[in-house]
C-alpha cells in the first residue's frame, strides 16, 4: 500500500476541563474516502479543525507526506493542500460569488486582481456542481443550498491533496448531492485523500471506502467495509442498540386545526397553496431546494407577509402581521437556520428558552428561580445535553436544535411547524426528535414537517404535500407516498 497523505497520532484536545478529543489516531491514504462518523459533539468538527490548522491540539502529533506537520494558521494548511469545507457556511455575503470562491487568493495580473480570469474560473467551478448562477452576483440573498454549493466550489478551486467535507450535504437536496458526489468520485480517482463527515447513513454507504467512528472524543471502531449493516454502525456510534428510527404514527383525528387556502406570497415564491392539517396529524412538505417550502411555512407562522389567500385556525380566519400574532394564537415555528433564526447563540440556554416565553412572564416579576425552573424543565424534558446556564454556542448542533424545539414546546402550541428539524443531527438524536414529533401528534397537536431528507418525510408524515417551483404539485397519503411518487411530483 502507498504512504498515507496524513497521519494523526494520539491527538487530544481540551477546552478547560472539557476533554473533547482523546488520543485519536488516524491515517488517510491518497484516493480513498474515509467516513468520520459520530454523534453530535463527538468531536468530528474539532478534529477537522485541527487538521486544517484552525485549532491547535493539546497533545499529539501529525505527519503530512511523512513530514512533521503542525499548522499554526489555516493558511499554512491550505498552502500544503489541506482543504476543509466547514460545517458552518464561511461566505462573505457582500462580495460576489467569484470573490468568495477565490477569497484570499484572488488571481492577480500586473499587480491588480484579474477579474476576468477570476470570474471565468469561478464560473467553471460552479458549473462542475451544476450551479448556474452568474459568478459576478453577490452572495447575499442566495438560498442556503446555493451557498453551500459555493462553499464546495471554493474548496474545489484549491487543488487539494486532502479534502475534508464536514457535513456538506446538510443543506442540499437530492440533485445537488448527486453533483457533489460526482466531484468527490472524480477527486478520488485523481488520488486526493478525502475525509467525509455526515449524519446521513445512505450517503456514507454510497460514497465512502472506510468508516471510522468517534464516540465522546475517542476513536471506538473502524469498519473497513462500507457494506457493514447500518444498524451495526449506528450501535457503535451511540454505544447502545437503536431498534428503530421512526416511531409508529398515531391515527389523526378528523378535526381540522389549520386550514390554508389559496395562499400566495408577494414575491411569488409560492402560489395558490391549499391544504389542511388535522389535530394529531403530521403533514410533511417535500420538494426540491428552492421550491418555496421555507417561504410557505414562514408565511403560515407570521414571519413573512402574504398577498392572497387565507389561513384558518380551528375554523376561524386569522390575520398574521408578525410572528407575535401567530405565537399568541398557538402557531410556532422551528426555523431552518438555528444559528441565525433559532437561537441567540451568545446567550445562555436558559435565557433562550425564556425569550420564547416572555409574553407569559410579561408584567410579572421574573425571578431567577422562575426562569431556572422553566429552563431546567425544558432541558430535562427534551434531553438536551447541557445545563440551563451554559451558553448556546457551547452546545453541539443537535443539542442546539433540541433547545430550539424545547423553547417552543414549553408553550403548549396548537400548531407546530418544523423546518428541516434534523439538519446536521446525528441518528441517535434524530430518533429522539422524531419521538418528540410523534408525541406532539399524540397529544392532538397539528404538526407540519418540512424536510429535504426524503426518508425523513416519508417516515414521519401522515400525508405529504409536494411543492414544485412554488406551486402545489399534489398531496399524497401515506399509502401513496414513496420516493418515486414524491420525486415525480417534485420535478413536474
Amino acid at each position, binding site marked *: 500500500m502507498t504512504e498515507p497523505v496524513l497521519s494523526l497520532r494520539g491527538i487530544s484536545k481540551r477546552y478547560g476541563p472539557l476533554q473533547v478529543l482523546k488520543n485519536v489516531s488516524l491515517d488517510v491514504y491518497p484516493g480513498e474516502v474515509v467516513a468520520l462518523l459520530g454523534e453530535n459533539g463527538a468531536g468530528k468538527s474539532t478534529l477537522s479543525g485541527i487538521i486544517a490548522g484552525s485549532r491547535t491540539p493539546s497533545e499529539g502529533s501529525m505527519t503530512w507526506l511523512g513530514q512533521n506537520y503542525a499548522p499554526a494558521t489555516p493558511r499554512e494548511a491550505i498552502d500544503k493542500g489541506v482543504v476543509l469545507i466547514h460545517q458552518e457556511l464561511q461566505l462573505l455575503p457582500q462580495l460576489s460569488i467569484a470573490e468568495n470562491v477565490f477569497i484570499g487568493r484572488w488571481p492577480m495580473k500586473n499587480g491588480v486582481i484579474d477579474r476576468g480570469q477570476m470570474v471565468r474560473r469561478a464560473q467553471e467551478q460552479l458549473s462542475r456542481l451544476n450551479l448556474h448562477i452568474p459568478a459576478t452576483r453577490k452572495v447575499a440573498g442566495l438560498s442556503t443550498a446555493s451557498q453551500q454549493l459555493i462553499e464546495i466550489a471554493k474548496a474545489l478551486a484549491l487543488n487539494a491533496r486532502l479534502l475534508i467535507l464536514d457535513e456538506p450535504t446538510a443543506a442540499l437536496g437530492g440533485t445537488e448531492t448527486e453533483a457533489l458526489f460526482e466531484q468527490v468520485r472524480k477527486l478520488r480517482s485523481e488520488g486526493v485523500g478525502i475525509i467525509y463527515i455526515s449524519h446521513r447513513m445512505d450517503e456514507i454507504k454510497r460514497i465512502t471506502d472506510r468508516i471510522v467512528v468517534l464516540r465522546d472524543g475517542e476513536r471506538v471502531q473502524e469498519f473497513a467495509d462500507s457494506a457493514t449493516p447500518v444498524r451495526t454502525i449506528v450501535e457503535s456510534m451511540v454505544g447502545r442498540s437503536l431498534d428503530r428510527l421512526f416511531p409508529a404514527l398515531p391515527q389523526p383525528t378528523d378535526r381540522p386545526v389549520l386550514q390554508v387556502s389559496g395562499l400566495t406570497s408577494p414575491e411569488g415564491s409560492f402560489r395558490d397553496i391549499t391544504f389542511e392539517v388535522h389535530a394529531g396529524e403530521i403533514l410533511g412538505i417535500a420538494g426540491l431546494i428552492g421550491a418555496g417550502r421555507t417561504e410557505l411555512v414562514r408565511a403560515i407562522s407570521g*414571519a413573512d407577509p402574504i398577498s392572497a389567500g387565507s389561513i384558518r385556525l380551528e375554523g376561524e380566519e386569522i390575520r398574521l402581521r*408578525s*410572528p*407575535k400574532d*401567530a*405565537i*399568541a394564537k398557538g402557531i410556532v*415555528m422551528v*426555523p431552518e437556520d438555528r444559528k*441565525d*433564526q*433559532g*437561537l*441567540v*447563540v*451568545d*446567550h*445562555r440556554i*436558559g*435565557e433562550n428558552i*425564556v*425569550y*420564547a416565553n*416572555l*409574553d407569559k*412572564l*410579561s*408584567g*410579572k*416579576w*421574573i*425571578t*431567577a*428561580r422562575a*426562569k*431556572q425552573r422553566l*429552563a*431546567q424543565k425544558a432541558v430535562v424534558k427534551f434531553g438536551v445535553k447541557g*445545563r*440551563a*446556564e*451554559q451558553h448556546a454556542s457551547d452546545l453541539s448542533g443537535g443539542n442546539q436544535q433540541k433547545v430550539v424545539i424545547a*423553547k417552543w414546546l414549553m408553550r403548549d402550541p396548537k400548531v407546530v411547524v418544523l423546518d428541516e428539524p434534523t439538519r446536521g443531527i446525528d441518528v441517535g438524536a434524530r430518533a429522539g426528535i422524531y419521538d418528540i414529533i410523534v408525541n406532539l401528534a399524540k397529544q392532538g397537536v397539528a404538526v407540519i414537517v418540512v424536510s429535504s431528507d426524503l426518508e425523513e418525510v416519508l417516515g414521519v408524515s401522515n400525508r405529504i404535500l409536494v411543492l414544485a417551483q412554488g406551486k402545489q404539485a399534489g398531496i399524497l397519503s401515506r399509502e401513496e407516498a414513496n420516493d418515486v411518487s414524491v420525486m415525480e411530483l417534485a420535478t413536474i
Partner: protein
Amino acid sequence: MVALDINEQSGPSGGWLKKLSGATGPLIGLLALCIFLSISTDAFLSLRNGLNILDQITVLGIMAVGVTFVILIGGIDLSVGSVLALSMMVMGWTANIAGMPMPVAIGFALVASAASGLVVGLLVTVFRVPAFIATLAMMSAARGVANMITDGQQIVGFPDWFTMLAIDRHFGILTATVFLMLAVVLAAWIFLHFRAEGRMLYAVGGNPEVARLAGINTQVVTIGVYVVSAILAGLAGIVLAARLDSVQPSSGFGYELDTIAAVVIGGTSLSGGAGGIGGTLIGVLIIGVLRNGLNLLNVSPFLQQVIIGVVIVLAVGAETIRRRRA
C-alpha cells in the same frame, strides 16, 4: 443550583461579583484608582469629597442609564447631549418666558425630549436609517432648535426650591438630584433583571431576527428604548438646570461620547445583547473619580487629557486580560 441571571459573559459559577456583567475588570480598575488617590492626596478620602463626586456624576449617570438601554439593543445614541440642551431650553422658556409654573415647564421639557426620541425611533425602525446617522442628525437638529428658542441666549434664575434640589443635602448626605440618579439606576437595574420587557432588550440586542421570530415586537422595543433614552437625557437636563440655576443652549456639548464611554467601560458590548446597569455605574464612577482625582492631584489640564485616555484603555484592557487568563 446556580441562579440563572448571572452575568451574560463568563462561566456559570460565582457570586454577586458576577452580577456586574463583565465589569469585574473595570471594578478592579475603579478600586485601584480609589486606593491610589486615597494615598496620594489628603482631600480624596473624605465624606465631603465622596458626596461631591456623587453630585458631579448625576447628569452623566442619568444619561448613561438610557444609553445603556440603547447599546444593549445594539444601537447607539449620539443625540443625548443635544436633547439635554433642548429639554433645558424648553423648561427655561416655559417657566421664565411663558411664565408657567415649574412643574408644567418640567413636563413640557420631558415631552419635548420624548418627542425627539420618538423621531429617532421611527427613523431607525420604519425608515431603516442606521442609528448612528439618525442620532447624529438629531444631535444637530435638536441643538439647532434649542438655540432657536431664545436665539442662543441663556435664561437665568429659577425658583429657590428648584435650585435647592441640587444643593440641599437631606439628612446631611444626599441631595434630591443625587437621590434621583440613584433611583433611576436602581429602577433600571430591576427593570433589566426582573421584568420581561427588560429581558427583551437582551434578546433584541443578541439577535433581532431571533427575537422577532420569538414573538417579540422588535420595532416597539426599539422605539421605546430611544424614547426612554431621550427622556432620561431630558431629565438630566433638568437636573443640570437645577445645578446651574440657569439654562443655556450650548449645554451638554460633547456629552454623547462621555456617556457612551462610561457605558462601554462598564462592560456593555457595543454589538448589543451583553452588559448591564451595574457595569455602567462603575463606568460612570471611573470617569467621575478620575476627573475629580486629577483635579485634586493638581495635574495640569493638558496632561489630564493624556491620563484620561490611558486610564480608559487600562480599565477596558484589564477586563480582556482578566478574561484571557480565566
